[in-house]
Every structure is written in C-alpha cells, then in structure tokens.
C-alpha cells in the first residue's frame, strides 16, 4: 500500500477515535466543562497530564535538540520533569483542597483582590496563547509532511477536530481524548526507538541501550558516538559545559515554569481527593518519563545512525556518494529539512563542523565546506526510515506527532476559555450568570480561542521559536511565586502579591526583549544576543528563575511594609494546608 494511504489510515483512525470519545463524554454542566466533574481517577489523570504536558516540542523537537547539544541539552530533560516534584509538593494538593475551577480564582480569593485576579488572568492568557500558537503551527506542519496537504488546510482540519471534542466535551472530553492521545503518542515514540536500540546495541530497552556496547565496534555506544563526531570537528557529545550558572538557572526556569503553567495545574482539579492530586503527579511523571527516558537514547542513536549513513566506512574514510544516498534522504530533501550542496564537486556528501580548528583537516581531505545540513526535527520524524522500519511505523509517527500537538493545544484552549468565561465573565462582568449561561459562554470563548489560535498558527507572528521561552518565563516569574506564597505564607498580602507578580513579569519581559527585540520585532533589540552581553552570563531563556526570585523578594518586602492580611484570609490559608473537608471543585 502507498505510504500516503497508510498515513491517512493512522491519522484518520486516531481522529475518528477522538471524535467518538467526544460524543460519549459530552459536558452537561460547568463542573463537567471545567474540571470533568471532578471524578477522574489519579492514574487516568496522570496519563492525561502526560499528553497535556508533552507537546510537539517534546515529541518532535526534544530528541533533536539533545542530539545536537549532547550533555549540554540535558537541561530540557531535567527541567521538564523536575517541575512535577514542585507541583506535587508545593502546589497541586493545596490548590485541589481550595477546590475552585481556575488558577486566577485562587489568586483573586487568596489575595482578596480583583486586580490580583486580573493580573493572573493576563499572565495566563499571555503564557497560554503564545504556547498554543506553536502547537497549532506544529500540527499544520505534521499534516503537510505526512498527508501532502498544505499547512493551512492541515491546520484547519486539526482545528475542526479540536473544536468538536473540546467545545462539546470541555475538560471531560479533553481528559478522555488526552488518555487516548497519550497511548497513541507513546506507542509511536517507543516502537522505532526499540528497533533502533536493538540494531545498535542488541538491547531492546532504549534507556539501557544508551549505556550499552555498540555491537558493531565493541565499544560503548556513547564512546563510539564521541569518537565519530569529534573526528569530524564536532563537539564531544558527553563534554561538560563551562557556564554552570546558566545551566543551573535554565534548568530551574524550566522547572518553575512547568509548575506554573495553568493548563497543567488545572488538570489536578479533576481528581476527587487531595491525596489523588499527589498520586496524580507521581503517575504523570511515570508516563512522561517513558518518553523522556527514551528521548536521550533516540538522540544519540539517531545521530550515530545519521553519521554512519554518511560515512559508511567510518569518519576517516570517504563519505557516501550523493547518487547512492538512501531513499529517506531523497524523501526528506523534498521537504527542505535536509539540504545538500556539493561544494567541492566530488559527488560525495561531506558533513562536518566548519570551524577554524578543523580547517587544516578539511583542507587536507579536499573538503571545501560542510555540504550537508539537516533540521533537528528529522531525527524523530525520519527515525523509522533511517532504521528501515516498515511503513506502518511511519504512519504511527504521523498520528503520534499530531496527538502530541493536539492534546496540548486542547489543554491550553481550556485554560484560556475558562479564564475568559469564569474569571472575566462570571468573575467581573456578570456575576449572576446562570450555570447554563456560563457553560454557553465557556463554549463560545473556546470557539473564539480556537479561531484565534488557528489564525495565529497559520500566520505565526515571526517569533514562533521564542514563544516557548516567553511562556515559561511568564509562568515562572509571575504565576508560580504568587501561587506558592499564597499557600506557604500567611503574611503576603494583596499589595505584596500584585507588586511581586508585576515586578517578576516585567523584569523577565524586559530582559528577554533587550536581547531578542521588543515584542520580538527583529532589529529592535538593544544588545546582541551573545554570551558576552548577558548579565553574569545568564541567557534570556534562563531569566525566568531570576524573575521568580525578584517576585518573591518584592512580595515579601512590600507585604512586610504594609498591613497583615485579614483574619479570614489567614484562616483560608490554614484550611488549604490540610485535606480534611475538601469537596469536589466548584465555582462558588
């Protein structure tokens, strides 16, 4: 069967499943719509959190990032998992005990201030909308590569599917589709990894294969990889990094950002009990770790495979002739993700690191520049083809990539629509709205959010690459500290919380804009984005952790200079600290 039809079968089949789930899990009340009725089992919720959390970035891009950066990019692995420890111990159980529908609602009640709630809504919208653009764009790209439709058409198909299950089912529909999407994406990710690990190391478990012996050469896999890439002028894969401060702060920013992202936090409101919120965090990390422990193995194995494809007789011997390149290189060349230019006209593909130190070696071998460039994403997308796996595995990767993008998009859209309908419409504009009226408002805001996300996904505002940094920066510097102080301090008051959130948010935004351009408009940056210019060597992507510290400091100073919170607020803080008396999440 033609590959196109196999892909169509897998993608179409998975979409039909999501829609069937949506029809089965229709939301009947605001409780269904916002928190899936509050009766989700912790293991089910853990799986849904896994899909909610693991986006196109985790599924498609992360292994490629690690393959390119080696040890230095382990920050993504630790940063995007360590946040769950913070969630489990510092936020989730207490916010579940508080028992309301949205994150801004907690901030508004705890800091007895409508303005605090609005600041939180603004942070939530900024973080979630920037994040959802990337997911929609990712879904469009996956469509265009695997189903040969143009990206905009693909995007619209994806938007319609999300619309059906998210608008109809709300959190209830999203929860069960996320469970299905988790299964699709984890199978799609691990099957090619198992085969590649078997081929290279004889070990069927990729995380073990990573530290096993490379069968062909008899030396450990990572040693072999280091040997091959350093012979071509690339940096040692396992090399240590010099700027430890930046590595620590980047990891910390990702962890705090993860814990502060509203679309992840609201998933903890769907379980029946406080204890379940704790268990959910553990199960979520188990399900996430299945992918996150596989990713570094995929990274190193795919990179080694790529190198041996180009240099079949080792890096010291001649590179492969262009005319003899394998089929997958031909196919991915069409998409522009692989590019070849025969600079020295010898008909062979020389791939090496064009640096000054390597120039003498390159010259001696008659090379006139690196001739082969590839986008990091192909290491996952082309993984089955590189390992010569059958066509159905490619179809699975297509369905998996879309599952990852759509499940995260749906979670984000729910966070956005609940902030609009619950925090803005019910919280401020029309507090007397009926449950039915609010449900309709939630559905309409979801529809508007999908339309906006689709539009922005089709016309990305030119800063798509930086948006993830922005989302994590905002969540880390504004929302996480406010939530944590709301639980762990009785002294922080309304003025302190608002001043802290604004200080953290503004300092982080300014630091990002100075290096990446104001509002990401190219050419408006005040300083070049190079390590020499960074304050103490801290990159703009790592600044979220510093912004969080500024937030904490400002909040404490301002609170201590002003009056104590009222007695009933201090009692509220007491009451979220123990589970007794928790009911299901409500909006009242």
């Amino acid at each position, binding site marked *: 069967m033609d590959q196109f039809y196999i892909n169509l079968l897998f993608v179409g089949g998975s979409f039909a499943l999501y829609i069937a789930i949506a029809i089965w899990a229709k939301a009947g009340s605001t409780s269904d719509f916002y928190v899936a009725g509050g009766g989700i089992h912790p293991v089910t919720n853990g799986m849904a959190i896994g899909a909610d959390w693991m986006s196109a970035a985790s599924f498609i891009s992360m292994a490629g990032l690690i393959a390119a950066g080696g040890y230095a990019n*382990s920050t993504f692995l630790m940063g995007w998992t360590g946040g769950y420890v913070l969630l489990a111990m510092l936020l989730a159980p207490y916010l579940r005990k508080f028992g309301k529908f949205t994150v801004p609602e907690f901030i508004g009640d705890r800091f007895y201030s409508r303005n605090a709630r609005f600041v939180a809504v603004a942070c939530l919208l900024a973080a979630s909308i920037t994040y959802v653009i990337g997911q929609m764009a990712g879904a469009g790209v996956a469509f265009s590569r695997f189903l040969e439709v143009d990206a905009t058409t693909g995007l619209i198909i994806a938007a319609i599917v999300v619309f059906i299950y998210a608008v109809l089912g709300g959190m209830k529909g999203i929860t069960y589709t996320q469970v299905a999407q988790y299964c699709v994406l984890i199978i799609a990710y691990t099957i090619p990894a198992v085969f590649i690990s078997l081929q290279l190391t004889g070990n069927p478990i990729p995380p073990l294969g990573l530290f096993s012996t490379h069968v062909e050469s008899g030396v450990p896999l990572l040693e072999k990889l280091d040997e091959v890439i350093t012979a071509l002028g690339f940096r040692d894969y396992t090399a240590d990094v010099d700027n430890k401060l930046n590595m620590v702060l980047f990891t910390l920013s990702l962890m705090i950002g993860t814990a502060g992202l509203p679309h992840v936090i609201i998933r903890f409101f769907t379980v029946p009990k406080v204890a379940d919120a704790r268990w959910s965090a553990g199960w979520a990390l188990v399900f996430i770790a299945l992918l996150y422990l596989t990713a570094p193995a995929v990274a190193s194995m795919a990179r080694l495979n790529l190198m041996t494809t180009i240099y079949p007789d080792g890096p010291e011997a001649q590179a492969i002739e262009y005319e003899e390149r394998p089929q997958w290189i031909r196919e991915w060349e069409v998409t522009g993700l692989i590019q070849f230019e025969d600079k020295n006209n010898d008909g062979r593909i020389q791939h090496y690191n064009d640096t000054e130190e390597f120039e003498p070696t390159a010259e001696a071998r008659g090379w006139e520049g690196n001739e082969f460039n590839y986008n990091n994403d192909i290491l996952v997308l082309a993984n089955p083809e590189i390992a010569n796996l059958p066509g159905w595995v490619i179809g699975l990767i297509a369905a998996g990539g879309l599952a990852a993008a759509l499940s995260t998009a749906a979670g984000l859209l729910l966070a956005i629509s609940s902030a609009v309908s619950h925090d803005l419409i019910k919280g401020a504009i029309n507090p007397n709205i009926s449950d039915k009226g609010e449900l309709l408002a939630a559905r309409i805001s979801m529809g508007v959010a999908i339309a906006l996300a689709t539009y922005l996904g089709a016309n990305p505002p030119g800063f798509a690459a930086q948006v993830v940094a922005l989302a994590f920066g905002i969540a880390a510097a504004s929302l996480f500290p406010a939530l944590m102080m709301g639980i762990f301090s009785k002294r922080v008051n309304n003025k302190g919380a608002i001043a802290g959130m604004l200080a953290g948010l503004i300092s982080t935004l300014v630091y990002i804009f100075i290096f990446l351009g104001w509002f990401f408009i190219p050419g408006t940056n005040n300083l070049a984005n190079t390590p020499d210019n960074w304050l103490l060597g801290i990159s703009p992507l790592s600044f979220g952790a510093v912004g969080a510290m500024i937030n904490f400091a400002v909040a404490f100073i301002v609170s201590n200079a002003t009056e104590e919170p009222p007695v009933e607020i201090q009692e509220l803080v007491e009451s979220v600290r123990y589970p007794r008396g928790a009911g299901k999440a409500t909006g009242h």
Partner: protein
Amino acid sequence: MSDIPSNAVEYWKANLRLIVGSMAIWAFVSYGCAILFRPFLSGIPIGGTDLGFWFAQQGSILTFIGLIFFYAWRMNTLDKKFGLDEE
C-alpha cells in the same frame, strides 16, 4: 471557617520538614550530581561516559519519580496520623 483543627500546626510542620528533605534530594541529584558536581564524579565510569552524565539524562528523572511517590505515601500516612484525611 474558624474551626481549624488543633493539631493542624503540628501537621503543617511535619509536612514542611518532609518537603525540605525531599527538595534537598531534588536539588542534589539535578543541580548537584548532574551539573555542579559532575567534574568530581568524572572518575566513576558508566557505559562509555561518567556518572554525572547518567544523572543528567536518567538518574534525575528516576529520582524525581521516587521522590513524588515517597512524598505522596508519607503525606497520606501523616493525614491519617493527624486525623486530617478526607473521609
């Protein structure tokens, strides 16, 4: 609102102690073993590289999972011990 159980303060202190201990391990494996102390652990070989690399790509994640389940289990015990669990 004002019916705060009398042992809630003790319970909270026990929770804080548990959190501080867990967070110390959380920071030790990720920021410590995987990043800052990697040069000191470079003498311990593991599958073609060193222990610090293992912590950065696997060890931290496995420790995080263990920590969360340990915390959840301990807290559930504390909830019952202090009589503050949900019925």
